[in-house]
């Protein structure tokens, strides 16, 4: 089981801030494919990966990163702090 978090318009598009997902996905990209296959709202949120960022256990990562041992995956748009 893995905690999946969504922020900003990703959260709005998917319709929830977090969920627990039962997944055997090897990489972030595999997890995205699993989620996108579920429902249109996921497919819509993940349509353009170039406009998304991902963090694994609260560190920025890329979509080819392995998920082994990861407990928390977060998807969000490029950050706009400051």
């Amino acid at each position, binding site marked *: 089981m893995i905690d999946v*978090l969504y*922020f*900003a*318009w990703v*959260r709005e598009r998917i319709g929830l801030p977090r969920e627990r997902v039962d997944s055997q996905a090897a990489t972030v990209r595999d997890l995205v494919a699993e989620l996108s296959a579920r429902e249109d709202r996921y497919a819509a949120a993940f349509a353009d990966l170039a406009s998304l960022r991902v*963090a694994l256990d*609260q*560190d*920025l990562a890329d979509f080819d990163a392995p998920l082994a041992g990861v407990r928390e995956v*977060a998807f*969000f*748009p*490029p*950050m*706009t*702090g*400051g």
Partner: protein
Amino acid sequence: MRVAVQTDPFDLGAEAAGFAAAAAGAGAVVTFTGIVRPTDTGALQAMEIEHYPGMTERAIAAMMDQARARWGLIDALVIHRHGRLALGEPIMMVATAAAHRAAAFEAAEFLMDYLKSRAPFWKKEITDAGADWVAAREADEDALTRWQAS
């Protein structure tokens, strides 16, 4: 070194004065304060800032460690608000203290550039016409290359 991520307003004056008074041996103190300003295009009513609790503090602490090591900072401070902010309210503040001015200025700009693009905050502008997530600007991403060159 202090990081505060909060919904409450902060008092720029009190924070700046307290920071400078505590920075023993500093010859230079720089502060940056970001304020909600009217957008160029529409009638901004408010700003809403979302963040990623846990990762935010972690990411900012990492930036501050890097800045302290690179510029030999005596001290640094980051305060960043989230939630709903009205026009004219302070959004965030960075302060740096160093022996000399170049280090204090560069470290403050470094922290600002990283906060813009690497700390997990997302801004939404609430205008008369509706609400829109602020798009990341390419210029902000490009600003980071300045710190990677040397």
